[in-house]
Structure formats: C-alpha cells, structure tokens
C-alpha cells in the first residue's frame, strides 16, 4: 500500500493532465483560424469598385475616396480625448458612446469609429492620428453618382452589419457592400476581392514583420465594370414625367428582354445615400411611410391590372377555340348574369373581337371568359387551363431576374376558389371579375411590361434583366433564352391589330404620336385602402400597357399612375411620351408633355390622410404646377447633387 501511494498519484496526475490537454486543445477550440488569431494583424487592401455604365456607355456611377477612422479598443492608450473629439467634430459623450459600442463588438477587432470623413477633416487628422494609439485611418472608396437618376435601379452601398458578417465571413466590420439595386445583385462582380496582409505582432502590439514571410498574403483584385441595360436619357425623362405623381414605369426591349427604364415615383437623389449623411438620410427616406420613396413601385407594387388583362383572355379564348375573331357579342351597358350586372360604358353593340378590344367591352370579355372556364365539365378544369395560359406570360410568379427586389403578383387557379367556396362549389360567374383584370388578379408593372413584350414578340419573351455586359465575364445564360407562351403564334395577329386600333380609334386615341404605330391597352383599376379600419375606395389607378412599333417592336412599356383615374389620362400620355422619346429621341407632342409636367396628384394623395370626407373619380382633384418654376427647380436639382429628395407635395415648394 505504502509503495503504491506516490505511484498512483503520479499516474492520476498524468491522466488528469492529458484529459485537460484534450479539453483545451481538441474539445474546446474551434478550428484554428488565422483570421481570428489576435497575434496576427490583418491589413486589408480594398480594390476599386467597378463602375456602372448605361446601355450607351454613359458613366452612371464612379468612385470617390473616403476615409474611415478605425479603432481597436484594446490598443487604445490614454489620450487627449478633447483634442481627438475636436478633430473628429464629435462631443465627448459621442466619443464614449462610440467607443463602448466598439468595445462591445470586440475589444480586439477593428471597428469603424467615424465613417467617411470629409476630405478636409481627413487632411487635418492625417497629421495627428499617429498620436492616438489604437486609432488609424482606413481608406475606402465611396460611390460617386454622376447623374441624380435611377436611385431605385442603381441602389447604394452601405456598411456590412453583424448579420451579414455572420452569414458571409468575407465581410468585416466597416466593409461596404451593395444594399439595393444592381449594387446588391452584382455585388461580387463590382466589389472585386480585397487583398490582405498578415503581419505578426508581439504582445505590445508592435508589428514584427510579415507572418511567414507573407505566404498567405493576397493582392486585391479590382472590381469589374458593368454595363446595365438602362437608357439613361429615357430613365431621366421618365423620372421627370413622374414628378408629382406616384407610380411606376417599366420599359423593356422585347427582342432581348433588356430593361430600358425602370422608374418608381417618388424617388430620390442617389447621392443622398453616400458619405457621412447616409444613415440620417436613409432614416428619413425609410420613415416616409406614406410616399415610400424606397419602395420600388415598378417592381414591388402589386395592383389589379384592369383592362390590359383582357387581351390575355382574348388570346386564351382563341387558343382554346371557344371563340372566333368574327363572333359578336351584344353589350347592353354591361353584362347581366344571375340577377347581377357587370357594367360597361357606352359603345356600339354588338362587337366582335377587334371592337371588343378597342372599346374595352366588359360584356364581350365576360362572355369569352365564361366560355373558357365552362369549356370542360368541371369549372375547375377550365380554371386550371386558363391559369396555366396566364402564367405562361410570366404573371403570378417571380420573374427570376437580376433585380434586388420583386413580387410574385397573384394569378388564381382552381385551388384558390376551392379554398374560398369549397370543392367544385363554384362556377365561372363566381369569379367573373377575372374577365376584366380585377378580382383575384394582382400584377406588378414589370410583369405587365413583360406581357406586352411577349405579345409584341407574338408568343415569347426573354426574362427581363438589367445586366448588359460584365467586364471580363458573361451574363447569366437564362437571360438569352426565349421563354415561349402557351399561345400559338397565329392567334396574336388579330389581338395586336386590336391593340393597334385602341390607339387608332379606341380608348387611347388621344395619345397618338405622328409616325409611330403603337399597340396599347388602357386600364382603369379600382382600388381600396383601409382608413381607420374601414375599407374605402380611392380614385382608380391609371394604367397603360403598350409596345411599339407594331411590327418588330423595340419597346414594350407598362405605366401605372396611382389614383390617376382613367387609363389614358396620365398613364397613356406618359407611355406615349416615353415611346416617342425612345424611338425618335425628341418630342413632337409638346402639348402632351406640357400637360404631364404641369399636372400633379399630390392633393389627391393627401385626401385619405386629411380626415375629411372626400370624393373620388369624377370628384378627383388635380394640381396645376406652374411650368417655369418647376423647370427652375429641376435645374437646381441637377446643379446640386446634395439636394434632398424631390419635393413630395406642392406645399413643400
């Protein structure tokens, strides 16, 4: 026994030590990571971010240098706080607050202390930063928007937050990355790859030399330039036309699916989201929950499409063989069924397909729709076939494109109605509003523009996309493959003719442009909001969907103007002007242009928030905007990049 005491203690201590080593070295640690080793200083070399050009090679986005003050809290030595505060132009309370935040994030890793110094502040600080241990200046490059257009298209860059850093270890605190628009979708192309140098430190935080003679160091790879499909001139013109209105315009080149213009109103100057004022301005834009300038109405706003949707019902009717182009249907100021009536406006009766389209006859399309749904024994069967045809035009789902935001819209099928009414306990009359693009249908402007492109192409479309060229790379091959609709090519001609007649002598005859054959369809969509919990109808949305020229179209466009009343009133005019601008480069319908520039809807938008009873549609109000003053203001906007968001209401001016 006595002999064994020391022996057993020695062996137990040996086993305990090995167990402790196992715990310390194998069980406890994460895999060794050079990046997390605080004995190694990581110095990043940020490459130049790629430029963005428009389709004609005009520079839209370039770079400007920016300087961040960084801090590594643990390395901070006692310092003259007042001097640093005055150099950085912050108060001592700010200083303590920011320092504590940085310390909470990590005492060892660098945090941004003051982001994006102005050039003057940088010059002052550069001389003195050495005095403050633990602080240093990191050079970065910021965006420089050459023109104050396309904020919703281009997007912006901002600092990586902790969520992003956790998700993607490439990003470190303070790194900039694309937050919206093409900056976000083409982030990896634009940003390049940052270089890194690993430097061995000693425990006094002094650099000893490159870690392992720099074998892990990398050189930065410059970001690549991209060319986007946007036509800057058209985009700028569209933004001008949409001033004092809310809504969206999307224009697509049908032969390629390239997005020519993508306008959301109201919008803002992209230079607002650059530099030190970014977060203040972003908060301002973000908090405007009524005008929602950050909300891309061209991509995200789901509206009932209204009459433009009728064209699809005509195409499906022909494809399913339930109607011919010659067959006529009567219209007695509407369509009566089962004791109810869907109203229509006054026009010659009866009408065949061509007349049905250009007169936008509700009764005609009610008949066609019912025949499609009732073609089979069960309405659910007809419904699903109808739904399949509609969806083949890219409606009812995401378009799978390269835009940072989007909405699927909504196209009903038999399941939708089985859920509402019960299995097969419904018929075509239950959802007759689908005939005229109301009811359960929701679409976004880009989907309608794409639909117009598919019709203009007589049966196929390319996924609408924003990228035209990547320096030293190829664009996604899905954007160059045509997607065919389920409608045969031969059925398109009569429909296209009908849309052309809308423009010749139908609901859009007021927007005729000399020398351009436009095929279009107006729309007027009822819409409702909740005011204090009460469903309230507002003035109809003004919608116009078109492509031009009639044969081999070069532009397909969808215009939505919120509460703009009937289709040709705002949307039709704007679409006509956009088409003329794009095809001819200049405007002959100066009268139409002047009308659009001098009419706004700000007061109309204020109504629901006034708390007073208000009238809609025929009782709608319209603002008259003095042209001269407006132009002056535009000039100011262009001359001063730092001006705020474009005026939201006439009272602001």
């Amino acid at each position, binding site marked *: 026994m006595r002999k064994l*005491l*020391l022996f057993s203690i*020695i062996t137990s201590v*040996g086993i305990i030590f090995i167990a402790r*080593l196992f715990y*310390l070295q*194998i069980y406890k640690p994460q895999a060794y990571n050079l990046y997390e080793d605080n004995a190694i200083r990581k110095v990043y070399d940020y490459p130049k971010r790629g430029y963005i050009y428009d389709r004609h090679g005009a520079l839209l986005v370039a770079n400007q240098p920016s300087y961040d003050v960084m801090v590594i809290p643990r390395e901070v030595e006692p310092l003259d706080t007042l001097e640093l505060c005055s150099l950085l132009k912050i108060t001592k309370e700010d200083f303590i607050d920011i320092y504590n935040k940085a310390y909470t994030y990590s005492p060892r890793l660098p945090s941004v202390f003051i982001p994006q110094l102005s050039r003057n502040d940088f010059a002052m600080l550069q001389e003195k930063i050495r005095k403050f241990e633990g602080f240093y200046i990191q050079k970065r490059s910021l965006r420089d928007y050459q023109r104050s257009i396309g904020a919703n298209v281009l997007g912006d860059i901002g600092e990586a937050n902790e969520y992003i850093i956790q998700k993607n270890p490439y990003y470190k605190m303070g790194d900039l990355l694309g937050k919206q628009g093409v900056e976000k979708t083409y982030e990896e192309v634009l940003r390049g790859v940052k270089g890194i140098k690993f430097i061995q430190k000693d*425990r006094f935080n002094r650099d000893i030399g490159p870690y392992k003679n720099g074998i892990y160091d990398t050189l930065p790879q410059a970001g690549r330039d991209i060319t986007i499909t946007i036509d800057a001139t058209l985009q700028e013109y569209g933004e001008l036309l949409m001033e004092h209105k809310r809504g969206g315009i999307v224009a697509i080149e049908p032969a390629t699916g390239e997005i020519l213009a993508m306008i959301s109103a109201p919008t803002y100057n992209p230079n607002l989201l650059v530099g030190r004022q970014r977060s203040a301005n972003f908060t301002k834009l973000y908090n405007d929950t009524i005008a929602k300038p950050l909300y891309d109405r061209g991509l995200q706003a789901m509206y009932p499409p209204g009459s433009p949707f009728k064209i699809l019902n005509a195409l499906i009717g022909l494809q399913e063989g339930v109607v011919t182009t010659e067959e006529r249907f009567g219209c007695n100021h509407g369509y009566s069924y089962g004791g109810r009536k869907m109203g229509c406006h006054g026009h010659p009766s009866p009408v065949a397909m061509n007349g049905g389209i250009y007169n936008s006859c509700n009764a005609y399309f009610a008949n066609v729709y019912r025949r499609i749904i009732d073609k089979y024994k069960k309405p659910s069967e007809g419904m699903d076939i109808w739904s399949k045809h509609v969806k083949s035009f890219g409606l009812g789902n995401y378009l799978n494109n390269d835009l940072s935001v989007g909405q699927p819209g909504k196209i009903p099928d038999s399941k939708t109605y089985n859920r509402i009414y019960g299995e097969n306990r419904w018929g075509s009359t239950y959802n007759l509003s689908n005939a005229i693009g109301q009811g359960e249908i929701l679409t976004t402007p880009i989907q309608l523009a794409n639909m117009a492109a598919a019709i203009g192409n007589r049966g196929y479309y390319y996924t609408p996309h924003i990228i035209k060229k990547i320096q030293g790379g190829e664009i996604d091959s899905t954007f160059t493959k045509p997607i065919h609709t389920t409608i045969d090519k031969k059925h398109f001609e009569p429909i296209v003719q009908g849309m052309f007649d809308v423009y010749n002598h139908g609901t859009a005859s007021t927007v005729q442009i000399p020398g351009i054959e436009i095929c279009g369809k107006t729309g007027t969509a009822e819409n409702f909001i909740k005011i204090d919990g009460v469903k309230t109808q507002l003035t109809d949305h003004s919608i116009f969907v078109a492509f031009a020229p009639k044969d081999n179209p070069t532009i397909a466009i969808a215009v939505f103007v919120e509460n703009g009343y009937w289709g040709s009133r705002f949307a039709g005019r704007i679409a006509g002007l956009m088409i003329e601008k794009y095809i001819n480069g200049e405007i002959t319908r100066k009268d139409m242009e002047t009308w659009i520039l001098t009419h706004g809807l700000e007061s109309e938008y204020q109504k629901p928030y006034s708390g007073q009873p208000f009238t809609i549609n025929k009782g709608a109000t319209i603002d008259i905007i003095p042209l001269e003053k407006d132009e002056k203001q535009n000039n100011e906007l262009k001359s001063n990049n730092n001006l705020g968001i474009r005026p939201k209401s006439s009272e602001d001016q």
Partner: protein
Amino acid sequence: MITAQRESRGLRLDWITIVLFLLLVGFGWVNILSASHQGEVTNYFDMEQPFGKQALFIILTLALIILTLAIEAKFYERFASIIYFASLLSLLGLFIFGKNVNGATSWYAFGGMTLQPSEFAKFATSLAVAKYISDLQTNIRTLKDQLRCIAIIVIPAILILLQNDAGSTVVYGAFFFVFYREGLQRIYLIIGVVLILLSVFALKFGIIFTVILTAVVVFGIHFFGKRKRPMLIETISVLLLCIGFAFGVKYFYDDILKEHQKDRISLWLRLESDPEKLEEMKQTILYNLNESEKAISSGGLAGKGFLQGTRTTGKFVPEQHTDYIFSTVGEEWGFLGSALVVILFVALLTRILYLAELQKSQFSRVYGYCVASILFLHFMINIGMVMGLIPTIGIPLPFFSYGGSGLWGFTILLFIFVKLDSNRLYDW
C-alpha cells in the same frame, strides 16, 4: 540479470532513465529556441539569446553527469551531512552576497553568470534525509525522529522562504511522500487530506457551511463508525480542532496572505463573483495564465509546427521560456506533443520509483523516493499551473525550463540516483 551481474561496475547504468532524461532535455531546448528566438536563427550558440546559453548549459551538464557518475557511490552516503551543511551555508550566504532578481534574493552573481543555490539545496536535502532515515538508530514512527526529519527539510525551506522565493519552498512538501513510504503513520496522511479539504471548503463555501459539514461527518463517524466508539469528549475535541483550523485558514487568507497571493487562490477556487472585477483580474494577474491557455488551445491536435506558433513568436506569454515553457509545446506541437511530454515525465517518474523499490540499501531507496517526489511536485505544479489547474506558483519544469542552475540541480539530483542504482548489486 545474470549477465548484468557479470558486467563491470561502471557500465551498469539504467539507460531507460538516461534516454528519458535526454529526450526531455533535448525537446526542452527545441522549445526554448522557439520561445526565445527573434527573427532568423543563424547561430544556435548565440550567447546573447536564452537558447544559446541553454545550449551551453546542456553541454556543461554532460560534463557534470560524467563527474557525478565518476564519484564513488559510497561518497554520497558518507558525505551527505557535509554536502547538506555546505548547501545551508550557501543559502545563508545569500543574505550577505545575494543578488535580487524579480524581488527574490536567490542568486549569486559571478561576472555575467548567476547561480541559484536553492536549486542545489534540493539534492543536498535529499541526501541528508536519506542519510538520516537510513540510520539504524532512526525510527520514523517515533515523534522525536519525525521532528528531526522535519527539521532537516524545514531549515532550508525557511531560508528559501526568507529569500522571498515562496515557489521553491512549496517543493519541500514533497518529502512527505518519502516519510510516508518509510513508515510514517497513516494518521498523518488522513490529517493532511482533511486539512486540505477543510481549507478548500472554508474558502470556497464559507465557515458556516464547513462547520456544519464537519460536525455532521465527525458525529457520523462517532456514532456509525465501524471501530470501537471513542469517548464523546475526544470526538468533540477533534471537531473543535477542525473548526479552529477552518477559522485559522480564513484568517490566514484574509489577513496574512499578500494581495497577489490571495488573488491567485481566489481565481483558482473561482471565489470572485463580480464579473467586472473578474475581467480586471484577467487583464492583470490572470494575464499570464490567460495567454498561456490560449496558446495551448490554439495548438489543436497537431500544433502549428516548430517555430510557427504565432503567440509564441509574438511573445504573448510572459516568461514563456522559463516557467511557461509548456505553453510553447502546446502551441507548436499540439495535443500530440504535449501529451508526449506528460507521458515522458510519467514514465521517468515511475521508472525512478520502480528502481527505488529495487534498491537493497535503504539510503538509495529513500534517496530515489526523494528524487521522484521532488521531480513530481515540480511537474505537477508547473504543468498544472500553465494549464490553469493549480494556482500560480512560479517553479520551473525540470529539464525543460530555461536556466542553468535549475538544469544542473535537477541533473545532479537525478544522476546521483543513477549512480546509486548502478551500485545496487554491490550493496548489502
């Protein structure tokens, strides 16, 4: 064994022990090189650098080994007392000629070299203890001889403590294992364990809890113990002594210990509950331990490789080439290398114990036990400290840590035993 008997006297050395020794010294030097080099190493004998000096120390050690082995085995037994008194003199001399390094007056300075007599006092005391216990007149079970044995170890221990080298003093506790092996009553072992438990409980869980627990245990043994029931008055005396001791520990901790010693114990027993204070302690007194644990952890399974440890290269662990040398092993050689070092030590210690039990002469056996116990205490305290299992006590890792005195002291300690062992077949 028959062939071994026929071998000549000088050659019958225990090569297992010697190989283990050489492995430890060699691997130790490799790690000292890692921990102390700056930039490219061009000259392994660069006398400006610790690794260069250590290389010289090692070469001198080889000469020292030859000298130790060349001396007649009986010399150590006969001259044990003289060596012991010479060692005490060298310790006393420090009070007059000593040089102060890091607050401890433990060194003689000769020109550029320094010598630390406390490192040599270990083998001197071991010889004295072996000599005294192996004396035919001595009976370790009597109180008189127990007190004398204790006197032999306490005198050098106190001298070292007075030089402010508390770490080295603790090592003298190792002789308890020797006494116990040689017949010290079991009650001392029990008392020792009870006192340690009482100290830990009193500090960790407070006096009241300790008193209640002690009372429950003591009366439990009194009423339900298998032995003949002792008198109640005896049991109560034991209980009172225990309670008195618990209070004594508390008083010692609160009022006698210095702040930094208190903090070390407080950290070890996790007494500090205020997170802010704890964080502050981590930045100050726990800094070494914190950095050393991080260095070891970062080594992972196979380590970062020789001269590749980032924390070692950056000199993040203070005193890394001396007391914290094991953290270099941890970082650069990983779990495999560190476990190997632990296994080498355990192998060396058990080999010494095994050989000690084989000795025919009591002097050799006792001395072997002294060697094993002293080396073991160093091994346990040093590695335990570096890995955060034991409160910080600054003593070197034998054969591994940088330092000439330490290396020579341990080498002589070990090789006297190798010599004694080589002589065992001629002992009777």
